[in-house]
Every structure is written in structure tokens, then in C-alpha cells.
């Protein structure tokens, strides 16, 4: 068991980070903390992917002079996936941050529970 953890240390670390990010996204009350949690979660996944692609003692997959033996390089596909993932993560974070700014303008608080509470109160007023 210990052997497994040590040999797969990046993967284990990434899963732990994923868990941290996931629970932050789910449970934190402050919107900024949720967004940070999302970023931690996504970054953890990139760590996992990068670790999956890594080959011991291999070079980065950048070819400068003609075709060479592919066994000498790290698997390039996960790097591509990580790049794609980063792009996705950035755009989603941008949307979330924009929403947070608007929410703050509207409700003057960054606490999601507080916002929902304010809306409920508003509903009750409207019903009367």
C-alpha cells in the first residue's frame, strides 16, 4: 500500500487536491472561495493528467530536428488535454467572476446563502 502511494505520488496528491477543491466549490459560503475551489479542482486534474503522461527520464515532446524515436519523449497527448482544460477553466472562471461582480452590485454581499435569503424575503414581500 505504501509502495503504491509513493510510486503514484502525483496522482494521489492530485486526487487529494481534487477533493479539497470539490468540497470548497460545494460547501464554501463565500463566492470567491467557491471560485478558488473550482480552480484548485481543475488544476488538480491537470496535475493528474500531466502525471499520467510522464515517462521517467524522457524528454519534453518538442522535436527540433527530424523524426526521432518516440520512446524518448514524454506522452504529448495529456499535455494537449491539459492545455484544452486550462482554456476551459479560464473561460468558466471568467464567467463566474463576472457573475460575482454583478451579484455583489445587486446584493452587496459575497455570501451565497445570504443572497438566497434576501431573495426569499423579497418573495415574501411580493406575496403580500
Amino acid at each position, binding site marked *: 500500500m505504501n509502495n503504491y502511494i509513493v510510486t503514484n505520488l502525483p*496522482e494521489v496528491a492530485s486526487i487529494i487536491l*481534487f477533493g479539497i*477543491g*470539490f468540497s470548497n*466549490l*460545494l460547501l464554501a459560503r463565500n*463566492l470567491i472561495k*467557491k471560485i478558488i475551489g*473550482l480552480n484548485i*479542482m*481543475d488544476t488538480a*486534474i491537470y496535475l*493528474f*493528467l500531466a502525471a*499520467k503522461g510522464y515517462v521517467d527520464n524522457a524528454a519534453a515532446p518538442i522535436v527540433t530536428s527530424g523524426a526521432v524515436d518516440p520512446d524518448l519523449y514524454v506522452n504529448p*497527448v*495529456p499535455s494537449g*488535454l491539459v492545455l*484544452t*482544460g486550462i482554456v*476551459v477553466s479560464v*473561460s*468558466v472562471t471568467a*464567467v*463566474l467572476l463576472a*457573475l*460575482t461582480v*454583478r*451579484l455583489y452590485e*445587486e*446584493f452587496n454581499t459575497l455570501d*451565497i446563502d445570504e*443572497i*438566497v435569503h*434576501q*431573495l426569499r424575503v*423579497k418573495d415574501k414581500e411580493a*406575496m403580500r
Partner: protein
Amino acid sequence: MNLLYNVPAFSILLPMLAGVICLVLPARASRRLSNTVIVVLALLSFLLLNSFLDGAPTFTYRMGHYGAPIGNEIRAGELESAMAMMFLVVMMLSLMGGRNHLRSDIGRSKVNLYYISVLFLLSSMLALTYTNDLFTAYVFVEINTVTACGIIISKEDGYTLAASMRYLIMSLLGSGLFLIGICLVYGLTGHLLMPNIQEAVNQLVQNGHYQAPLQVTIALFAVGLALKSALWPFHSWLPDAHSSASAASSAILSGLVLKSFIFLMIKIFFRTVGPDVMTGHAILNLLLVFGVLGMLLGSVNALFEKDIKRMLAFSSVSQIGYIFCGIGLGTIAGVSAALVQVVVHAVTKAMLFIAAGGLMDASGGRKDFDALQGAGKRDIVAGAAFVVGTMSMIGLPFFAGFITKLTLVTAAAGTHDWRTYVSLAAIVVSTILTAIYYIRVLSLLFGRNGSEEQDGEVRGRRFLSAYLRRHLSMDTEYILAILAFIGINLWIGLRSDDLVDIINAGLATFQ
């Protein structure tokens, strides 16, 4: 047939291109562009579907320079093109039906931004339908999420902002789980293309290696996509999101967005994991149980709502439960029944949300039941749509809802164990609950009018001309959209064999 091979790729790329162009167009031009794109794609999808029905085989289409297993592919068959057509038709009708509300909810200067979101949403839904590659699926899932959020917050008030924030958060949780699942699968098999993954998974199962990670992966896929499709208990974001958005957005969200994720899940179960591994898998039982609970509790919650759009949203939770009940049965007949419900619910719920928009218009913009008294008489087209929707939900023969009950009960009867009894009991109880809250609204809509002057307006021969004068000038599209929806509902109810045959034929060649 040669040119038709390009239709799937075209369907994904054209809306994106049109969306980018919409950035610089004014409101009217962007609406026209969007409508044109959707109509053109619907025609092309229809031609593609026709060619499959005439016997053309399913094909894969290489996106980019590299072929399988390194490159990216999309795949088209009867089922995919039928789903694509359904998405396009319902989206067209929803946009037509909700056009007036766009004007009032969003404001002319930002309408083109709305159409950008809609076009990208359409592109992502079509991509999820046609894709054969898991990571592409993830990217388009994220595009789907962000643009769906876009069409909610296009109507700017506090409710939509909070609702879309909660939607985004829940959705991103699901995406995160989905992504880690993809990464695990990549780690286990080294492939991202679905057929290749299926081969590798079959080998793993035969060898007995990596069984635990495989099970975890399947669970991650299921839960991740279930979070995004509002399976109970992951549905908490749905009522706020669907009820606060404008009419067209609610119709698109409830009818189409949820379904694209469900279709992706079915595709993953069939093509990535493979029917050999999936049949009898424990995760299906879990989906069945949650589906059944969703059917019951969604209806129970809807009973207590005093606001028509929230009631319709909870009704969606209940109907999505039917779909998961069908998937959870674990047989091909069950998945077929689930797909029938996908189509029927898309058509019916979109119609109901558009009608709700019309009813709200006829009641001074308010959506609570007190204001909606007699609204069915003030806006007859919406009232008729609500009658058709109710009949369909109760499951009267002639209407589409009967066909989904027929296929689902027949599928449930096919599994001869506890699943039969649980599903049947849930169907019976949820039908009666559904009947209760829909008929209650119906009697409200056609009951006494709220005020005297409205009463005066309703009676007399002047009613028809006043109605036509008021509505025909700007609401032609709305009336046409609702009539088209009613027509589709009746067509499915009367000629369901066509639909069921297409779905069954598509499922046969799906993996």
C-alpha cells in the same frame, strides 16, 4: 450521400460561425441569421435522417488530419440525426414562441448577445449528439454549461443572477467529476475515442485488471452527468433556474439542455463502457432508484407550488425521473423508452413553458396563481396548449404522453423482478399526482376571470375580433409556434410507430 457526410461537422461549426458574426449584428439581423441557420440545419439533418432510413450505414467522420485512434472523430447514425433534428425543431419553435419576451426581458441592444449564446448552445448540443471522442465531449459540455448560464442571465434581475450562480456551481461540480472520470479512463486505456475505449475496457474486464478503477470511472461518469441532468437529489438548482429565466430560455433549458446530457450519458454507457459491462451493473439500479424518487418527489413538490413556472420546473424534475427510470431498467427496451420520453418531454415541456409565457402576458406579467385566474380564456392559444399538455402528461391516448407510458410500462414489464413493481407503482402514483396539479392549474386558467372588465372582454362577439386585433399584429410567431407544438404532440401520439422505429433502429447500430 457524399455531401451528406459533411452534415454533422457542418451542424457543429455553422452555428459557431454564425454566433461570432452575431457579435457585430444588430438585433433584427442576428435574429434572422439565427433563424436561418437553424432552419438550414434542420433541413440538412432531415435529409441525413432520410438517407439513414433508406439504408445508408452509420459513418464516422474524421475531424482534422489524423485518423483513429489518435485523431478526433464524429459519428452519425439514425439516432444521432433524429436527436439533432429534434433539438433543432424544438429550439426553432421555442425561439419563435418566446420572441416577444426577449424584447421585453432583455432589451433591444443586447438581443444579439442572446442569440450568440443560443447559437453556441445549439452548436454544443449538436456536438454532444454527434461526438465520438470523450474529451471533445467534455469541452462541449463546458460550452453547454456556460451558454446555458448565458441564456438565463440574459434577463437581468436578482433572481436570474442567483439562480444561474447556483446552476453554474452545481454544473461545475458535475463537470469536475466527469473530467476526472475521463482522465481515469485515459489512464486505464490510453484512448479517448469511444470505440477504442470500449475494446480496451472489454479486455480489462476479461483480464480482471483494474476492476476497482473501472467501477469508479463508471460511477463518476454517471454521477457527473446526473448532476447536470437534474436527477433527484441533484435537482436543487433546477426550479430557480428554469422559473426565473425568460420564456424562450426556460423552454430551451427544460426541453433541450437537460436532454443533451442524458443523451451523452446513454452514449457513454453504450459506446464507451459497452453493453456487456453495463447490463446488470449496480449503478443502473442506483439510477433507477433515484429516478423513481425523482418521479414521486418532483410531483409532490410541484403540488405545493403557487407559481406556474416553478410548478412546471418541478414537473420537469418528475419527468426526468421517468427517463432515468427507463435507463435504470438496464434493458434495451428501457433505454428505448427513455429516449421516447426524451423526445416527448422536450416537445411537451417547451410548449408548456411558451404557453406559460403567454399566460403571464395576459395577466400583467405576473406568474402566481392568483393573477392567472381565467388567463386561459384571455389567451386562448396558450390555454389550448395547456389543455394539450395536461392531456399528454396524464397519458390519454391520442397524445404523446400515452406513448411514453406505453413504452415505459412495457419495458418495465420485461424485467421480471423488483424493478417491475417499483417502476409500475411509481408510474401510477406520479401519474395521479401529475394529474392533480395540472388539472388544478387548468381549472384555474379556465375559471372565473379576475376582474369585471376582463369578464366583459371575454363575453360577446367582440371577443374574437378583439383577440385577433390584440394578438395577430405582433404575436403571429407565438401562435404559430404553439400550434406547431400541439401538432407535433398529436403527431407523436397518433403516429408513434415512426418515432419508436427510428429510435429502436438507431439503438441497434449505436455501439
